């Protein structure tokens, strides 16, 4: 139905409005159904509280300042861990992509370490760091390291060798070659790594915070479980989802801005 009247509108007017609305229809419908199911008693509130109860719990925590504090703590852990692990992964990816020597020296070792699931290290990490901040940062950084490392390395290794030869023929210095040919060529792959790493970042943080923490969203959820506050538990889960979506959108915006030359990023 909307296809017909929107087709008569100019393109620029039609796309953003419909696009902006359409993606929220399904989530809103789910929340509405959920609310009805709770209110009618179809789903007992001991199993799943109504959305309105979750909102109310959120409002109370917001007023007490607890919510903001815990979100902030988790956000800081996530971003610091991401920055540390991401920059080390990026540095190794660059070094091993550009230098044979460096690659021979470290790649095999890194590939071996990659096969250890980093969450399996939690008991060891607690023994090393206790439930200190550094334990969470270490785990997040470790989890983020590999996707960034692997995709940076892959991106650099798969830059079109004909373009590199072209750059050399036209007298580019090593620095120019990196800036104008190698890095832009590797960027799409680096972004794949970033998106992947963001997912791992939240996952690691949730697990680490539920097992060993005295603050943060995961801790808030575990506390609530002890006191049977199921609405707070559900609230924490939803906030994790929201933060994950936020991080993903931010990386998409960055991707669009830097890869504007790539036909895949042009308006469909």
């Amino acid at each position: 139905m909307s296809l017909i009247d929107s087709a008569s509108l100019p393109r620029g007017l039609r796309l953003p409005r419909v696009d902006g609305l359409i993606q929220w229809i399904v989530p809103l419908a789910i929340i509405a159904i959920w609310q009805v199911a709770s209110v009618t008693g179809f789903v007992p509130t001991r199993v799943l509280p109504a959305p309105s109860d979750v909102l109310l719990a959120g409002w109370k925590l917001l007023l007490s300042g607890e919510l903001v504090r815990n979100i902030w703590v988790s956000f800081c852990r996530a971003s610091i861990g991401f920055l540390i692990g991401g920059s080390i992964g990026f540095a190794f990816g660059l070094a091993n992509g550009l230098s044979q020597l460096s690659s021979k020296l470290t790649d095999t070792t890194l590939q071996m370490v990659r096969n250890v699931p980093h969450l399996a290290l939690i008991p060891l990490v607690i023994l090393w760091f206790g439930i200190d901040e550094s334990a969470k940062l270490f785990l997040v950084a470790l989890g983020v390291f590999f996707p960034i490392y692997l995709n940076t390395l892959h991106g650099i290794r798969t830059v079109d060798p004909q373009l590199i030869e072209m750059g050399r023929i036209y007298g580019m210095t090593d620095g120019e070659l990196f800036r104008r040919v190698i890095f832009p060529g590797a960027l799409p792959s680096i972004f794949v790594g970033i998106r992947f790493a963001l997912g791992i970042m939240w996952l690691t943080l949730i697990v680490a915070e539920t097992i060993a923490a005295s603050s943060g969203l995961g801790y808030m959820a575990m506390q609530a479980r002890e006191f049977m506050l199921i609405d707070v538990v559900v609230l924490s889960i939803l906030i994790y989802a929201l933060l994950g979506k936020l991080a993903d959108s931010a990386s998409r915006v960055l991707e669009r801005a830097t890869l504007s030359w790539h036909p895949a990023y042009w308006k469909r």
Partner: protein
Amino acid sequence: MQTALRTSLPETELATRANFAPHARVVREERPVQTSGLPLSIRGLRKSYGDNEVLRGIDLHIPAGQFVAIVGKSGCGKSTLLRLIAGLEKIDAGSISLGDAVKPEDIRVMFQEPRLLPWARVLSNVEVGLGRDRASSDAHSRAEKALTEVGLADKRDQWPSVLSGGQKQRVALARALVSRPRVLAFDEPLGALDALTRISMQRLLERVWRDQGFTAILVTHDVAEAVALADRVLVIEEGRIAHDVVVNTARPRERGSAELAGLEGSILSHLLSADDRT
């Protein structure tokens, strides 16, 4: 394998030793009036990849500003010869001399693939061709001029991915021309284009060569293209220059004329008879 050798021999010595390919003749009337081109002398050039002896002694003199086409069976070493001339590979034995005081910007190569940077606009792709002069203040205007020369001034702010194959190749030509090279080597630059685009690109190549007077070396698998464009067609067989055919037809040449068709036929029969022998 001997050490690489890229010496510069005095021109006079080369001219007096007329022991080049048997048919080599100088074709002065076919060259542009004023030439900025460099003469090219190759002596005893050899190149192997492992056990594969690709070039087994090439002797060749190309006068400044001449348009030379190189044909031969696939895998006979045409690209290798071009890459050696452009300094992209090491010479096993022999020498290539391009006169004295050659700057890197004096020799440019164009490949079958346009090799444009997809993340740079058309104009900045052309600026890449300026080499060390990229940072100079007139870089923009020089690049624009080169784009105008190939008829793509209106595409300066486009991404390469929106261009057609022929347009991309014209941008690559502008990038090669922008530094005013004195030798331009083409490795099957039109091989990937459709027939009509190819003909208009051939006209463009001929025009810029006449305007600028560089020495042109064109590798092609299309013998008709070779006789239509070149002053001289070299046939490579078994790592040597087997035939050196002068094309004396006046320019502008009429494609499909009896004269060119005759030449094309005789070159093709050289190529095919070599095929029968192996």
